[in-house]
Structures are given as structure tokens and as C-alpha cells.
């Protein structure tokens, strides 16, 4: 029964190997890649259903790789939060894989053969990061994911791609070193790296003979690493160049999946591991009343993450307005949108009431889902425009609405979802985020959210006006849209619409996920690091 936990990982792993083995048969390779991604989606659905959604489901399931018991072996844990994230990634991955079948064939031979295996390695890294219950293993999955994405950023091999890749690689190498530092420090301090074990030990440091003070700083290091993966200000500057350099289906995956790994890691570690930590904090700026005080590292995460999220919303929004190309606008926009996801997380960290925390995490999750779907849609649409017209610069575009109505309607839906129009998924996301801000009585948050929303409207309108409205330009008149590519984009648009209209089940799923994120005790019990139950 618990094999279902590891099933998604096994499916992508086997697919990656098979597509590598049969690399020289293009049809077989493409078929395998598509079947593998569909299988992945099925495995995720099965996991979500048997572990979380089915009536009487346990809500959490664990898997001990190699049969070594926790905390000695590597534990994989699937709970509501992991399942929610996986479902999101599977949806984006499927659309991106369908899009890829029509995107890969016009790239050189060597690169073509490595596209599908790397695509699945990227998925593997993301899946592993969502499922692992061990901090060092999380590091390993991060690296797996990053290795694949490095290659994709350098994929086209032009000077600007190499520069973007070098920047991306250099930053992430530093981040990896910092991650290792934090892991080493946590191990030296607490004597364990298993997340459940870590949560238990930190909740009662005296019983385990731990001095928990360094944990706050180490968690700060971890937070900066995850913020880099999520692309929060001040770690955002790799995003625009990397997103423009990678092939569009991969950019969709980077924005829809890799970024969410950063958010997931922040949520998981903040609420499942460090929320219960018994570390009194009191910091103050000398000579003023400003200061932070609280009983757990979250007291410190709240304000810091809040500042980062607010800055992201502003920087992303302002940056997006002036970009000269579709992809540029969306790349900056995704910096701002991550701010919208991180803001409720920060509010939840600062809050003390359990009920409010759940609401805020729920808001973050719903918004993350909305962003993953909408942004994947928009990046894929930009890719479709690029392969049809050969350009994505606004100056060469215009009148796409006339030439490609289906694609334009899909982009329209995606933009409205970003803006937050009912009845699309974005409306509920924005609504919940605003509700969290109002309930927290955070006036500053409201101002930032409002400003961010206005900026979103401004750049979405600009994309529409310059790219899709008006008389067709020469490039657009000669364009031939690829049906499969458009179909993938339209399918995602239908997804955005479906999430908005049939919001109830999604809301329930997200609620289960938020509850799982906050349920540190249930998590520890399921993993059972001490082996008391055995």
C-alpha cells in the first residue's frame, strides 16, 4: 500500500532512463516521454486519492527507502501538503510535456536526444523534494532539479543563454554551500536531520540536551536558500534572464514547479518543523521600540518574509510594466506573483492563532495553484507565439487576436486569472490572500497587495494591447500556429476556468493540505523516528 508514496518518483525515473536508452528513435522517445508524464499524473492522482482524498484515507503515508527505519534511513512522507503540490506539478508537467512534443523537433540532434530525459529528471527532482522527510535528502533533490535546469537554461547555446546559465549556476552553487552549512549546523546542534525527529527534538530541547539558540540563525540560512529558489527579492535577479533563456515548456515548468519547491520548503520547514521549536527570541534595535520577540523561530521568519514578499510584489510589478517582450513581462510578473504567495505565509508565521494560520496557509496554497496554472499557460502561449512568428518583442507583434483567436482567448483567461477576476481560479486566490491580510489587520500588507494588483492589471493590459489587439503586424500575418501547442495552452486555460467554477473540491483539498502543513504532531507520529510504536 505504501508503495504508492514512491510511485510518482519511480515512474519519472524509469521514463527518464527509457527516453535516454531510446534517444535515437524520435517517435518512440516522444511517445515514451508523453506516456511517462501521463503515468506520472496518474500515479500522483492515485497517491492523492488513496492517501488524502478517499473517504477514510489515512491522510499521511510514509515509505522507508531500502527498508531502513527512521531516523536512520531516508524517509519519504506523503501528506496533504505534498499531495496538493504534486497534483499542481503534475498538471503543469502534463501540459508542458504535450507542448514539448511539438517544440523539440526543431532543435539540433544532440540537444533533442537529451531534452526528454532531462525533462523527467527535472520532474524527478521536484517530486523528490515534495516527498522527502529528510533535510539532507531535500538538498540532494534540490541538486537533481537544479542540474537539469542548468542544462535547460544553457540549452540554446547563444551568448545570452550562456551568460544567463552562468549567473544561475554561480548563484545556486553559493546557495548549495549555504544549504550545506545550515544542514551541518542543524546536525551538530540537534543530532538529527530527519524532519519529524527534528520537530520532536526542538519541541522539547531540554529533554534531548540541546541548546536550541543556533537554530534561529540556521533557519535564517535555510530561509535565504529557499527564497533564492522561489525568486523572492532580494534573491530575484537570476529570474528574468534564466526564464527568457530556457525553452518555453521548461520555463513553464520552472515557474509552475521549481519555484513552488522553494515555497513548499518554506511552508514545510516553518510550520511542520520549526513552529513547535521552543526557542525564546527577543531582538531589538538599540534605542528604538522596534524589535522581535516570540517563543519560536517563526517570530523571526514572519517579519523577514513579510518584507521580502512585499518587496517582491513591488519589484516584480514595476519591473514587468516596462519590459519590451512578452516573456520579459511574464518573467518579472512571476517575481511579483511569488510575493503574493509568500505574503500570507509571512502573515501565518507572525500569527499566533491556529485558525488564522490555517486560513493564511490555505490562501498561499490556493494562490500558488492559481499562479502555477496561469503562469504556465502564459509562458506556453509565449512559446507558441515565438514558434509561430519567430519573435516575442512587442514591437514586432500586434493583432494576434485576429490571427489566433483560440490562443488569444486562452491568454486572455490566463491574464484575467493573474489579475484575479471571478469566476477564475485567480479570484479565489486573491480573495483569500486579501481576507488573510484583513483578518491579520495588517494595513501595510493591504496597501502592498492593492498596489500589486493594480500593477498586475497594468502589465496584463499592456501585453494584451501591444501583442494581441490592433492590426496584425507582418510577423503575425505570416504566422502559422501549431495546433498541438495551442491545444496545450487551451487545456490549461480550461483548467484555470474549471478550478474557478468548481472551486469547492479544490478548496477542500487545499484545506486538507494547509491542515497537514500545520500538523507537526501528526507528521512526527506517522514518521515515528523514535520507533516507539514499532
Amino acid at each position, binding site marked *: 500500500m505504501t508503495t504508492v508514496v514512491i510511485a510518482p518518483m519511480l515512474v519519472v525515473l524509469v521514463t527518464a532512463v527509457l527516453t535516454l536508452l531510446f534517444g535515437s528513435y524520435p517517435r518512440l522517445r516522444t511517445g515514451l516521454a508523453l506516456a511517462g508524464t501521463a503515468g506520472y499524473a496518474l500515479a500522483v492522482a492515485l497517491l492523492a486519492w488513496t492517501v488524502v482524498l478517499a473517504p477514510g484515507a489515512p491522510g499521511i503515508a510514509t515509505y522507508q527507502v531500502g527498508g531502513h527505519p527512521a531516523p536512520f534511513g531516508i524517509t519519504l512522507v506523503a501528506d496533504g501538503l505534498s499531495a496538493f503540490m504534486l497534483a499542481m506539478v503534475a498538471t503543469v508537467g502534463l501540459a508542458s510535456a504535450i507542448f514539448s512534443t511539438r517544440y523539440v523537433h526543431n532543435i539540433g540532434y544532440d540537444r533533442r536526444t537529451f531534452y526528454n530525459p532531462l525533462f523527467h529528471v527535472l520532474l524527478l527532482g521536484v517530486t523528490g523534494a515534495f516527498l522527502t522527510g529528510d533535510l*539532507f535528502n531535500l*538538498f*540532494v533533490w534540490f*541538486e537533481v532539479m537544479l*542540474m537539469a535546469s*542548468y542544462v535547460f537554461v*544553457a540549452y540554446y*547555446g*547563444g*551568448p*545570452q543563454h*550562456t*551568460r544567463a*546559465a*552562468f549567473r544561475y*549556476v*554561480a548563484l545556486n*552553487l*553559493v546557495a*548549495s*554551500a*549555504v544549504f*550545506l*552549512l545550515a*544542514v*551541518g*549546523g542543524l*546536525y*551538530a546542534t540537534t543530532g538529527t536531520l530527519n524532519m519529524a525527529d527534528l520537530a520532536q527534538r526542538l519541541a522539547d530541547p531540554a529533554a534531548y540536551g540541546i541548546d536550541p539558540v543556533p537554530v534561529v540563525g540556521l533557519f535564517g540560512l535555510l530561509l535565504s536558500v529557499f527564497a533564492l529558489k522561489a525568486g523572492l527579492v532580494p534573491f530575484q535577479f537570476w529570474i528574468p534572464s534564466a526564464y527568457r533563456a530556457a525553452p518555453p515548456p521548461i520555463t513553464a515548468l520552472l515557474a509552475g514547479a521549481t519555484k513552488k519547491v522553494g515555497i513548499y520548503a518554506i511552508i514545510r520547514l516553518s510550520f511542520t518543523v520549526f513552529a513547535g521549536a521552543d526557542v525564546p527570541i527577543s531582538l531589538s534595535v538599540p534605542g528604538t521600540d522596534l524589535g522581535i520577540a516570540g517563543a519560536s523561530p517563526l517570530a523571526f521568519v514572519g517579519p523577514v518574509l513579510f518584507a521580502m514578499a512585499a518587496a517582491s510584489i513591488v519589484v516584480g510589478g514595476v519591473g514587468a510594466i516596462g519590459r*519590451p517582450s512578452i516573456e520579459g513581462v511574464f518573467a518579472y510578473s512571476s517575481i511579483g506573483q511569488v510575493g503574493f504567495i509568500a505574503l500570507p505565509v509571512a502573515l501565518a508565521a507572525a500569527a499566533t492563532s491556529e485558525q488564522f494560520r490555517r486560513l493564511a496557509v490555505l490562501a498561499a496554497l490556493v494562490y500558488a495553484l492559481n499562479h502555477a496554472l496561469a503562469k504556465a499557460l502564459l509562458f506556453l502561449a509565449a512559446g507558441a507565439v515565438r514558434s509561430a512568428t519567430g519573435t516575442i*518583442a512587442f*514591437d*514586432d507583434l500586434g493583432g494576434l487576436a485576429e490571427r489566433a483567436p483560440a490562443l488569444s482567448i486562452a491568454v486572455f483567461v490566463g491574464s484575467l486569472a493573474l489579475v484575479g477576476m471571478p469566476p477564475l481560479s485567480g479570484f479565489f486566490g486573491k480573495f483569500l490572500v486579501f481576507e488573510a491580510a484583513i483578518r491579520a489587520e495588517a494595513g501595510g500588507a493591504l496597501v502592498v497587495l492593492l498596489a500589486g494588483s493594480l500593477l498586475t492589471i497594468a502589465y496584463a493590459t499592456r501585453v494584451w494591447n501591444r501583442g494581441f489587439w490592433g492590426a496584425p*503586424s*507582418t510577423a503575425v500575418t505570416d504566422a502559422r500556429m501549431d495546433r498541438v501547442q495551442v491545444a496545450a495552452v487551451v487545456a490549461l486555460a480550461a483548467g484555470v476556468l474549471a478550478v474557478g467554477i468548481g472551486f469547492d473540491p479544490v478548496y477542500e483539498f487545499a484545506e486538507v493540505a494547509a491542515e497537514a502543513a500545520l500538523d507537526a504532531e501528526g507528521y512526527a507520529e506517522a514518521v515515528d523516528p523514535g520507533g516507539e510504536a514499532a
Partner: protein
Amino acid sequence: MTAIVLAATVGALFALGTFLMLRRDLVRVVWGLALVGQAANLYLLTAGEIAPATHDAVPVLAGHGEVPETADPLVQALVLTAIVIGFGMTAFALVLSYRVYEEHGTLDLAEIGGREVSEGRERTRSDGGDRR
């Protein structure tokens, strides 16, 4: 004593790595990244301590007489993994810097950055010129 030597080494590696990372030469930057990675590995190694000689620490040897003092095997396994990953990453970064040299004819970061700015401007200008 070992602790002081190790701490000094970790500190020195970090200092040197950071210094190299801030150079203008791309290859030096890669060396800097590699050094910082190694410093983190060494730090990870120091996180494990030498366990006292008890049967709890080495359950395999229960019933086999005297148990020697043991070093923590977990950190060694972690560092091994981290070294392998770091090795691959450094190789990739070196190949990438070779590509940068091939495409730009220089490894000076200031020049490469200048190229990026001017290319960006050119692109916008030529796009403007093509406008009908």
C-alpha cells in the same frame, strides 16, 4: 586542538573562496565557488563528533568485546554525497566558463557585463527600426 585547526581551515577556505568569487576573472570565480563548496563540506564533516566507546554507538559490535571510539559515519556519508554533487557542478561551471570565453573572446566579467548591456540596447533599437 583539532577543533581549532579545523575551524581555522574552514574560515580560511571561506575567506579565500569569497575573495576569489569577487574577482573579475571568470575562472577565478569558478575556483572561488569550488572553494566555498569545499569549505561547506569540511564544515559538514566537523558537525559529527567522535562518539565514546559504548555498545549503543556501535550496535554491530555488541557481544564482540571491546568497542573502539568511533567517528560519526553519517556526516561522512553526507559529505561523500555533497562532494560528488560539488564535483559535477564545478565541472559544469568550468565547461560553461569555457563556452563564455568562446562566445565572448574574454573572461573579464566587466567586459562581458558591458556586452550584455550593449546587446540589450541594440536589440531594442533594431526592434524599433523594424517597426512598420
